[in-house]
Structure formats: C-alpha cells, structure tokens
C-alpha cells in the first residue's frame, strides 16, 4: 500500500476509494500485469462463441452476399416504391453506433471528464468496427457492387468523375474521412499500451506484432509531448467530423423530394439519434466486458455505468425533443402527402412499431435511468441499452422502408417485406462482435497509461476532518 496515506483511513475515505477507480491506485507493474492477464486469459467458452459467430459470419454475411450478388437484388425485399430497405437501415444504424465511440472519447477527453479514462478504448473500437459494418451494408445495397469503385474520384482515361451534386458522393467522402480519422484516433492513444505489451511479451509473433505497431515508443519526455499534441489535435478535429458525417447521412433523406424525408431538422435529429443508439451500445459493451473478462471489475465500476447512464438519460430527452420538433412541424404544415404519411406511421399495418419505438426510446430510459441505483447496475443498463438500440433501429426502419411506402403516386404504394437482408444484417452484427472479441485478445482493451495518469492526478486531501478529492492538472 505504498501509494496510500500512512495515516489510518477513515471509513468515508475507504468508501471513496472503493467507489472511484481514480482514487484506488495500484502499482504500475501490477496494473499492467492485470491488463496483460485479461488479454491472455482465454477460456473454452471464448472459443465456442468465436466458432458460433464465425459460422454466422460465414453463412449470414459471405454466403448470403454471394447469393445476393449472383442472383440480383430480387432476393432482397426491396421493391417499387421501397427502393431502399434494411441495407440502408443497417448503414444508418451502424454509423449511429460508431458515433458514440468518438463522442465519448473525444468530447470527454476534450472536456477532461475523468470518468472516461478506463473505457475510451472500448468506445473507440466501436467506432472503427461499426463503420466497417456500415461500409458492408452500403455495398450490399448496391445493384452492381462490382462497380463500386466508380463512386470514388479516381483519374481515368475517359475523364469520368463522380457526381458531386449527389448526397451519396458526399456520404462516401464523409464516411471515408470518418473511418480514417477515427482509426488514427484509435491508434494514437494505443501506442503507449502497445509498447507496454511489447515489453511484457516474450518472443513469438505477438512480440513482432507489438514491436511493429508500437513504432519504437519508449516513453521519453519528447515522445509523450508529440503524442499528446497529436491526440489533442485529433480529439478536437474529430468532433466536427463526427457531427458532419451524420448530418450528411441525414441529407441523403432530407434533400430528396419525398414526403416525410424533406425535413430541415433531420441533421441534428440524426446526430442525437446516433448518440442515443451509440451510448446504448457503449454501455452494453462495457457490461459484457466487465462481466466476462478477467480483472475488469477493478477497471469498470458502477460509477462508470452511472456516469454513462446519466448521459443516456439526457440524450434520450434530447432525442425526444428533436423527434417532437420533426413531427410537429411536418404535421402542422398540413401537406397532403406528409399528413398521409404521418397517419400511416401511427395507424398503418406497422403502426405498432411506431409506438414501440417511442416506448423504448423515451419511456424506458426516462423511467429507469433517473434512479441512481438502477443506472449503476450493469445488467439493468445493459437491457436499457439493448432496448434503445432496438428502438433506434426501428426508428430508421420507419424512416426508410415504411416512409417509402407512401409517395405521391398512390398507384404504386406497396408494403416492404424483408428478404435476404435479415441474414446479412445478422451477419454484420456477428462480425462486429467477432472483431471485438479478436481485438480483446490482441490489444489492451483498457488504456492503462490513461488510468495510471488519472490516478496520479487524483488524491484525497484532508481539510480538517473532511476528505476532499483533488485533481491536479498534469497536461
């Protein structure tokens, strides 16, 4: 107990240390060993899950996609007028999931929110892996995916360029920018941990893997200085990128001449929706990591669920506000087609989805997350996060295929019934989890240096009889 006070601690202090990771320091070597142990402890259950998920990915993603390419879009559920279906729903959904990663990491880092420290990495991984699924989903959606490179602006003999008037071109550029910048943003804080893993690995391919990726990081003052400024630049830069990406995704719909889509509030409404589902996904990941990986109960504590739970509650309120804003203005406008569509949302054959969405996106979080004890309990927030994600998926389902059912040409109205989209969608979920499982065995899921830095900055000071938590500015 070298790090703790020599004077005997009061009961209150012990309670504080037990509650807050930042006040409960462990020696560096011990903590590093804990993270390495979590990475290397693999039970048979892990391999069973990996095998199951691999089978789902092989069948759901690759085999089904092969059929889709060979047979054509006819095996999917898209029709006229629902030219866009679950593929686009999944694209928007995954981009939404990927948002919270960067949000938690960048915004909380910029605002120096101390509770972020143990789970920034887990959140950032979600960004990169979620964007991969979004990319898969959008390419599945294309009628001739083997021509997808035509969407890229590349020099060619016939001087053909993509159409920069098209929101899909903006989309592609935005998502690519986001993927590249968020991957770099994931990589930069990973370097010190990779160096730690390198120093603690004896031989084998892992040694080479860490040695190459750690870029020879040794932890000198100069290296830290450069790393810090690079991370600072990325943390600031990635916030506007994150806002722009989902706004651009919303423009796919907002600029179209469709009733229900043509809404000026779609940009912020989509951003808050993305954060809503993304926060739910972060909390689910954290609950699973805490429950299944070794030593994680030390790093991820109820205080973190509590803090994210509060954010979820606020974001849920924000989502409700924007939903209402989007709804009331369109409804008040009184356009014939929009009114028909809004009526169809609520009382059409899939009207129950609309009510279910409002229930799980608003009623459930509001009635559960206000309670401090409930929002500190991992399994409760896991269920809330899961329900929010289902609700947000349904929200996109209502915006895309259900809204497409109603158009200005009533002769073509037709309900959309999903086909091969379902195994493909499940395949993307399985691939997301599989990538996460692989990452948990290859890289330290906990940013150890960030936790250690935080613990050094935090201390308990005594003023009279009162223990006060103080944080010193390290940077």
């Amino acid at each position, binding site marked *: 107990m070298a790090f703790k006070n020599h004077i005997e601690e009061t009961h209150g202090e012990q309670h504080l240390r037990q509650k807050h990771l930042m006040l409960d320091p462990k020696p560096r070597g011990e903590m590093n060993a804990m993270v390495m142990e979590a990475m290397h402890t693999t039970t048979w259950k892990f391999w069973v899950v990996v095998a199951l998920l691999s089978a789902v990915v092989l069948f759901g993603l690759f085999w089904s996609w092969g059929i889709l390419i060979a*047979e*054509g*879009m*006819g*095996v999917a559920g*898209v*029709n*006229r*007028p*629902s*030219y*866009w279906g679950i593929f686009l729903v999944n694209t928007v959904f995954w981009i939404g999931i990927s948002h919270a990663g960067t949000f938690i990491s960048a915004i909380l880092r910029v605002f120096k929110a101390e509770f972020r420290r143990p789970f920034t990495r887990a959140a950032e991984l979600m960004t990169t892996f979620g964007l991969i699924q979004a990319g898969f989903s959008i390419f599945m*959606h*294309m*009628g*001739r*995916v083997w*021509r*997808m490179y*035509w*969407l890229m602006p590349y020099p060619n003999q016939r001087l*053909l*360029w*993509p*159409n920069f*008037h*098209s*929101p*899909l*071109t903006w989309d*592609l550029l935005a998502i690519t920018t986001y993927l590249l910048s968020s991957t770099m943003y994931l990589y930069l804080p990973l370097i010190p941990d990779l160096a730690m893993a390198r120093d603690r690995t004896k031989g084998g391919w892992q040694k080479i893997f860490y040695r190459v990726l750690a870029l020879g990081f040794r932890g000198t003052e100069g290296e830290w200085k450069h790393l810090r400024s690079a991370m600072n630049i990325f943390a600031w830069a990635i916030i506007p990128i994150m806002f722009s990406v989902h706004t651009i995704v919303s423009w*796919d719909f907002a*600029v*179209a*001449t*469709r009733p229900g889509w043509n809404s000026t509030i779609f940009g912020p409404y989509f951003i808050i929706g993305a954060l809503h589902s993304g926060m739910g996904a972060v909390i689910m990941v954290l609950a699973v990591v805490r429950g299944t990986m070794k030593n994680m109960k030390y790093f991820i504590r109820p205080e973190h669920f509590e803090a994210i739970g509060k954010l979820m509650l606020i974001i849920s309120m924000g989502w409700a506000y924007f939903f209402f804003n989007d709804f009331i203005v369109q409804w008040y406008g009184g356009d014939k087609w929009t009114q028909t569509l809004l009526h169809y949302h609520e009382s059409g054959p899939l009207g129950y989805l609309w009510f279910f969405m409002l229930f799980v996106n608003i009623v459930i979080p509001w009635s559960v997350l206000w309670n401090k004890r409930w929002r500190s309990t991992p399994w409760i927030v896991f269920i809330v996060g899961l329900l929010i994600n289902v609700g947000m998926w349904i929200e996109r389902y209502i915006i895309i295929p259900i809204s*497409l059912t109603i*158009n*200005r*040409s*009533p*002769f*073509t109205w*037709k309900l959309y*019934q999903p086909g091969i989209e379902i195994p493909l969608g499940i395949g993307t979920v399985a691939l997301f989890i599989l990538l996460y499982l692989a990452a948990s065995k290859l890289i330290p899921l906990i940013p150890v240096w960030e936790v250690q830095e935080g613990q050094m900055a935090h201390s308990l000071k005594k003023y009279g009889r009162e223990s006060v938590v103080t944080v010193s500015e390290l940077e």
Partner: protein
Amino acid sequence: MKPIDLNIIGAKGAIAEEAEGKWGMAIDEDLCTGCQACVAACAMENNISFVGEEDAAYGRTMHWIRIERFWEGEYPDVRTTSFQPMLCQQCGHAPCEPVCPVFATVHSQADELNLQVYNRCVGTRYCGNNCPYQVRAFNWRDYERPEPLNNQLNPDVTVRQRGVMEKCTFCIQRIHQAEDTAKSEGRELQDGEFDPACAQACPADAIVFGRVDDPDSKVSQLSRQKRGVKHLEDLATLPRITYLKES
C-alpha cells in the same frame, strides 16, 4: 440557341425555368380506354424483361409505361376515375438527375431528354426514390425470356443487366432513326413522321407525340387546350407530358 452545359453548378435551375423542352407528349385521358396496348408495345420495342407473376405482384414490374386506375368508394358504389397512362415525364428539372452519384442519370443536351446510361449505373436506386412519378424500373434479377420471346429482341435497343435502373426514353432509337432519315434526304423532320411505340400502338390515338418547341405541331396545339394539366406541377419538375382531361 447556344448550347449550355447543364452540369455547371447553378446553370440547371436558371435554364430549366425557361426551358420548354424539345420532345413532348399529350395524353388524352378522355380518350384512353385502358386497353394496355401501349404497355405491350413499349415492352416489345424496348426489350423490357418479364418479371413473372410473383415479382409483379410484389411491385417489381418493369414496364416503362403503366395504366393507373383509381376509384373511390366500395363496391357496388364505385366511382372510377379515368385511366391514367403514367410514364417518365422527361422533366426539364428532374429530381432523379442530381442524386445519382455516378452520372448514370443525365440530361441530354441534344435531345433534352433524361437519359439513363445503363453501363454507368451502379444500382444505388436513389433516382427511383427521388422520382415523384415512380416511373423508373429496376432490374431486380436477370429475368429469362420465355420461348419464343427470346427471338423478338429489338436490335436497336440494348438489353440490361441485373442491378441497373432503366426508364422510358421516349423511344430515342426511333427519334434518331427518323432524324437520320430526314437528314440523309436533306429535309427537316416533319411533325407526325414517326411515333414512339406507345403512341403508335394506341388504338384511340390518346397519345400524341411531337415537338413541343414547335407551336404548330399537333402536340403543342393539344397541350395549349384548357383541358391540359401537368402532373404534380407544384414540384417544379417541369414535366414534358400534358394530360388532357375534362375536370
């Protein structure tokens, strides 16, 4: 008139305002009997795939022209409206064009038509979503042509692969053929010299095709009647088809 590049930013809206178009159509709903001869003729002329019962019932018909039929009330007190042949309106300011990421949906300067470049299409189907008339047809599969229909393909029109969008071209192959014939004979193209397949097949002569920029052509005269309406005119798509009906 000096040709203007419609792909210059800002040019499109300004030009579309005044563009009256070149080729146009007048469809008399009071004459249309809903016999579907135009639908069959169009399918034969343009090598349109037969999607089969199942896909057709699921909203995947690929006809470039369709007869829309509406009614009010329940049987037996049904009040039907007139038949409404619906095909690509060849908008002067088309919503389908700007949304295509690869320029597969483009505006032809020479013919002032909306063209679909099948070879360039990657199948994002955004144009189909953005078309308020829902007249674009997507190749959901590679449909087989049952015997002996595989022997009747029109050599002037390409067949399309699965995964690309297609739509009415105002029978551009016939337009070009007639223009070439007139040019080789050293004369101007006459009004009514040729017709697209739908107009040619219509037994009631409800579809009239011609130059809308020529005030003396039959289609211009018909379009100027009080009976004429444009479909969804409030969207400012500047459709080139005038529907004639007593309202």
